[in-house]
């Protein structure tokens, strides 16, 4: 990688030089009269600079990839090829400068190519995500039976080997925490959105809306700390211990409650959009018949907005399932299949963090399991998102 830096810098310098050379050459070709040129000198300059820099840069990326795949260091041959490409590009475009050259079209072709490359990064990211996890997940299933992973009821990694790595207790914890979070966030978020869009005066709206948006801007680590130092001890001292539910500050309830707070703005802003998409004519129709505002909301607006709201809840669920910091700090680390919400349980994300941050052999199933967990998480959340976005989109189209 390092050995490619020098040729790359040289190419960059060449591109800059080419830019000015092309500019002066274009002027010379035109005999000092810019009007004689089909394309402006600047366009020639840009074309030369791009012709010089883009092919070598692409080559560097390819070489780097090749070098990694073949486990070798890029050698002097690579550098030579890169320099050759740059010099050729520069020379060809300089020679090509004539009065009738359509340099603008060429330059714009290069730019369009770069734009397309930039758009493809999103695709490459997805491919990267899928392959990085798929590859290690296969490694994992080579060492550990997939049936045990998906159906075993115990999770007890043992770094001397012979671990039980069943995902079910983790999924249970994940779903339990998410369920409590949604139980808290959906009614509050929905009612807040309804109140703000249908009832609140401008004064309350100008205070409450930003306040709820602030909740959305707070990083999850802050919520995690809040769960750890405030909500957890509070729930333990005032609910769990007096009522005999347990002595743990980290619990499904702690994480669920705090995650619920985090999701309130998410649910309310999505619901707000969706409720506002219901045409005013629909409300007028109901109010004009003598329905009260709440009857209008419950019997006309909400049923009309229902698909959108369901979509919003699914998106919130996917958020909850993938959330990490709150559960790392609030839910606990013990994998447990229990119904008691005041007990510490653990989630898929917590275990991904703990399996990948420990000092363990990277090839052991105890580490590799994190990739299988990650892939499972990715598939679940992706499924929820695709489904939810589909519903929401269908819903929007209905009123457009």
């Amino acid at each position: 990688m390092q050995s490619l830096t020098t040729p790359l810098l040289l190419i960059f310098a060449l591109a800059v030089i080419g830019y000015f050379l092309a500019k002066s050459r274009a002027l010379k070709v035109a005999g000092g009269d810019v009007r004689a040129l089909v394309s402006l000198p600047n366009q020639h300059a840009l074309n030369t600079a791009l012709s010089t820099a883009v092919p070598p840069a692409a080559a560097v990326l390819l070489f780097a990839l090749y070098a990694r795949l073949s486990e070798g260091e890029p050698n002097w041959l690579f550098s030579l090829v890169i320099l050759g490409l740059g010099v050729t590009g520069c020379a060809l475009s300089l020679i090509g400068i004539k009065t009738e050259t359509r340099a603008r079209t060429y330059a714009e072709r290069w730019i369009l190519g770069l734009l397309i490359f930039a758009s493809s990064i999103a695709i490459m990211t997805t491919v990267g995500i899928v392959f990085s996890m798929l590859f290690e997940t296969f490694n994992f299933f080579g060492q550990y039976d997939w049936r045990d992973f998906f159906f075993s009821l115990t999770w007890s990694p043992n770094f001397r080997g012979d671990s039980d790595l069943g995902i079910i207790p983790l999924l249970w914890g994940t779903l339990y925490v998410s369920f409590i979070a949604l139980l808290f966030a959906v009614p509050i978020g929905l009612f807040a959105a309804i109140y703000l869009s249908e009832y609140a005066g401008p004064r309350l709206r100008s205070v409450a809306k930003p306040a709820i948006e602030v909740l959305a801007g707070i990083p999850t680590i802050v919520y995690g700390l809040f769960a750890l130092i405030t909500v957890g001890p509070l729930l333990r001292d005032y609910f769990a211990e007096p009522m005999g539910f347990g002595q743990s500050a980290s619990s499904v309830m702690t994480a669920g409650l705090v995650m619920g707070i985090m999701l309130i703005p998410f649910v309310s802003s999505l619901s707000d959009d969706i409720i506002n998409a219901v045409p005013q004519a629909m409300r007028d129709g109901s109010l004009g018949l003598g329905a009260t505002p709440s009857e209008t909301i419950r019997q006309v607006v909400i049923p009309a907005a229902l698909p959108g709201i369901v979509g919003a809840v699914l998106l919130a669920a996917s958020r909850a399932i993938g959330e990490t910091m709150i559960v790392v700090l609030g839910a606990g680390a013990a994998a447990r299949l229990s119904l008691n919400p005041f007990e510490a349980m653990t989630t898929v994300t917590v275990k991904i963090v703990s399996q990948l941050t420990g000092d363990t052999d990277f090839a052991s199933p105890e580490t590799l399991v994190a990739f299988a967990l990650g892939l499972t998480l990715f598939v679940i959340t992706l499924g929820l998102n695709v489904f939810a976005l589909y519903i929401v989109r269908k819903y929007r189209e209905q009123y457009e």
Partner: protein
Amino acid sequence: MEDLTHVDRAMSTAQDIKISAKGVQVHYGDNHAIKDVNVEIDDKTVTAFIGPSGCGKSTFLRCINRMNDTIDVARVTGDIRIDGEDIYDPKVDPVQLRAKVGMVFQKPNPFPKSIYDNVAYGPKIHGLARNKADLDEIVEKSLRKAALWNEAKDRLASPGTGLSGGQQQRLCIARAIATAPEVLLMDEPCSALDPIATAQVEELIDELRQSFSVVIVTHSMQQAARVSQKTAFFHLGNLVEYDDTDKIFTNPQDPRTESYISGRIG
């Protein structure tokens, strides 16, 4: 048509006054939308409000069932009475008022529910039916009155949004009359409809006169002439002229009315 209106007018003069408005002013924020309107609307009559766009005719219509309450910046002053009762009295519940004064809107706005549920919505919230059979009867009667029964009776469970534009508007009329109102306000009910559907709705309006006092806002002078017995001409928030329909159209008193009718303003 000409003859018919003459006869109707003779009938209507015998009616009581249903709605009376005195000194009504409406402000939308800084905009003075309605300026001192005085009008008396008869029972069992079709009254048309005409005038150029933005003249305040729809705004005034929305004052009669207090739909302007739903707009934050609207402020209504003056006195509007239905059967002698001030509808802006603090003791009046707009919900009860709107049950009495139904409204049909410019664009058909059926709820995303079945045809049956659209019509049954009003009776349900106002508790007009004691049981299912009662409700069925109300729905059927309303749909018949709205001349939609024959087209809709076999598809009562299908969504109201699946009907054609004209059918949707008649559904909205059926929905409005299902709550047994005494006054029916119609805000340009035909502006979104094609000529055939318009003719059907106009015919319907004429029949509704038997049971209600109908107030209709319309852009089309021909429509006003066809369906109404009384016509009010609004211009820039003022009620310029209010008289029998044929008088307005044949012998307007105010030059502004004359210009509008002859197409010089509008």
